[in-house]
């Protein structure tokens, strides 16, 4: 064994205050702290900036006749009228219709997929489903819009005898496919989170598989399933290109799924190019954007909170 002598030299420099601040390593820590904090603040400062900026630019839109009520519920979108009016009723109503339609279609299917994945599917299919869902989720909005454009629109024109096939229904159908993977994967997580022994005890009482699923699994996973639906809602509201290409871009207030509509996102994309900054149209677009942003952020935060509660439930 090697004989060891403890080096005696270190202690003399140990505690003299003068040396402390000049240690090279201390500076590197300070630098890292400063740089990382700076980046952190820069990034999150952007959030504050976005929200404040859009809100500030949206305020002038309230100057129109009727104020907030007028903007949201009364005024039509008629930039060429005398005087021009920029009400966004048709926009948020279109958003609502398209979103509701897409959820109506997507949620049952997503629930089925989730139940399939977590309760019924053989391992091979289960392994395939995950990448399939990720694939669906990865296709960009514009490609979905294009796909709908070349499949649904001609179909609608032929079967319903329309001059142009774009309508809220078309947008809603495609949107339901876009939203499906998100709702399905969150719902699957929720179902998987149900503890195994809960299932086992239920099966042990001799009931059918579906009885267990319906009365035990779904009930236990309810908050997570709710979160999944709400997540789908948020994503559907935020989609831009697909609805732009499929919903019809009409500024009249829609009354039925076969009508043409213009969700908020499509409104912004259509009109922004022609809106001079600081014009009334610009402020109205900002107001629409603010509405959209606030709603989607609130929904997303709700989902996150629900997800957290879902996780802590199964500790």
């Amino acid at each position, binding site marked *: *064994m*090697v004989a*060891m*002598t*403890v*080096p005696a030299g*270190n*202690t003399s420099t*140990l*505690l003299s*205050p003068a*040396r*402390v601040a000049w*240690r090279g*390593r*201390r500076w590197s820590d300070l630098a890292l702290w400063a740089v990382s904090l700076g980046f952190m603040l820069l990034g999150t400062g952007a959030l504050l900036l976005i929200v404040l900026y859009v809100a500030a630019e949206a305020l002038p839109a309230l100057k129109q006749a009727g104020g907030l009520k007028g903007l949201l519920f009364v005024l039509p979108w008629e930039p060429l009228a005398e005087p021009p009016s920029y009400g966004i009723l048709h926009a948020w109503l279109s958003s609502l219709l398209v979103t509701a339609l897409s959820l109506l279609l997507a949620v049952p299917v997503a629930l089925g997929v989730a139940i399939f994945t977590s309760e019924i599917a053989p391992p091979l299919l289960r392994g395939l489903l995950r990448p399939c869902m990720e694939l669906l989720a990865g296709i960009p909005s514009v490609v979905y819009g294009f796909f709908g454009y070349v499949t649904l629109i001609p179909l609608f024109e032929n079967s319903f005898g329309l001059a142009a096939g774009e309508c809220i229904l078309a947008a809603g159908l495609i949107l339901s496919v876009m939203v499906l993977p998100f709702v399905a994967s969150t719902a699957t997580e929720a179902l998987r989170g149900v503890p195994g022994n809960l299932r086992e005890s239920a099966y042990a009482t001799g009931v059918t598989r579906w009885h267990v699923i319906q009365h035990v699994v779904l009930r236990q996973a309810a908050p997570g399933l709710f979160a999944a639906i709400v997540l789908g809602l948020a994503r559907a509201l935020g989609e831009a290109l697909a609805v732009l290409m499929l919903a019809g871009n009409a500024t009249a207030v829609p009354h039925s799924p076969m009508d043409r509509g213009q969700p908020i996102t499509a409104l912004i994309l259509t009109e922004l190019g022609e809106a001079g900054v600081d014009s009334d149209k610009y402020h109205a677009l900002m107001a629409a954007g603010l509405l959209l942003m606030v709603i989607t952020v609130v929904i997303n935060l709700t989902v996150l909170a629900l997800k957290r509660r879902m996780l802590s439930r199964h500790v």
Partner: protein
Amino acid sequence: MPNSPSLAPTLEVRDLQVHYGRSSALTNISCRIPSRQVTAVMGPSGCGKSTFIKTLNRTLELTPRARVRGGSVLYRGHDIYASACNVDDIRKQIGIIHQRPVSFPMSIKENVLFGARFHKLVRRADETDYARKYLERVGLWNEVRDRLGAHAGTLSGGQQQRLCLARTLANQPTVILMDEPCSALDPAATRRIEELIIELERDYTIVIVTHNMSQARRVSRNALFFYDGRLMEAGPTQQIFEDPRESLTREFVTGQIG
């Protein structure tokens, strides 16, 4: 080896108060840790042994919510909690190994050199010899000499603990703290570590937390008995076991409590 009364204690604790959040974990701890001897820290679980040992090299502050509220820890006469004190240097001089061996995600050689490289204790050219020296010291060299570049995670539990010890030794400390170093190991590995401790006593001051009383009798020369956050008794190990002054101590060493 005979006790050397002329050596001043390396570590001295005065009126130490430690809190976790609002509740008190250690109250009024005062004691001396003699140099170049093994001191055991004993007591029932939850009495504050681990907390105490972590205050000795300022690793307690890495635990969230843990605070040293009062008192001082003197290392060679200087309070390590004074604001002028350099924490990195303290931790270099007073090393610690934990209950669960924690090897870093790098090769065996890089593990040993981790701290030494930072403190610039070794030159690039001498690294392998330096690592070898400490691996030999802990008795690991023959087992790993052919695979210094292998990932440290491939070692067994006992080997990893010895690796952690080599890593700490490579920092050239004067004091080595050990927080129940053998409780996660099998008896054979435990024995090897204990033999190492006895051998290292020649050159280092060692403080070892143990819940195993026979281990304390085997390796330590002095002992501290903690109960409920207080230091009940301190003295030579032999005296603590054979002729304890406090009744609580007697109850503990006879196995009636803890």
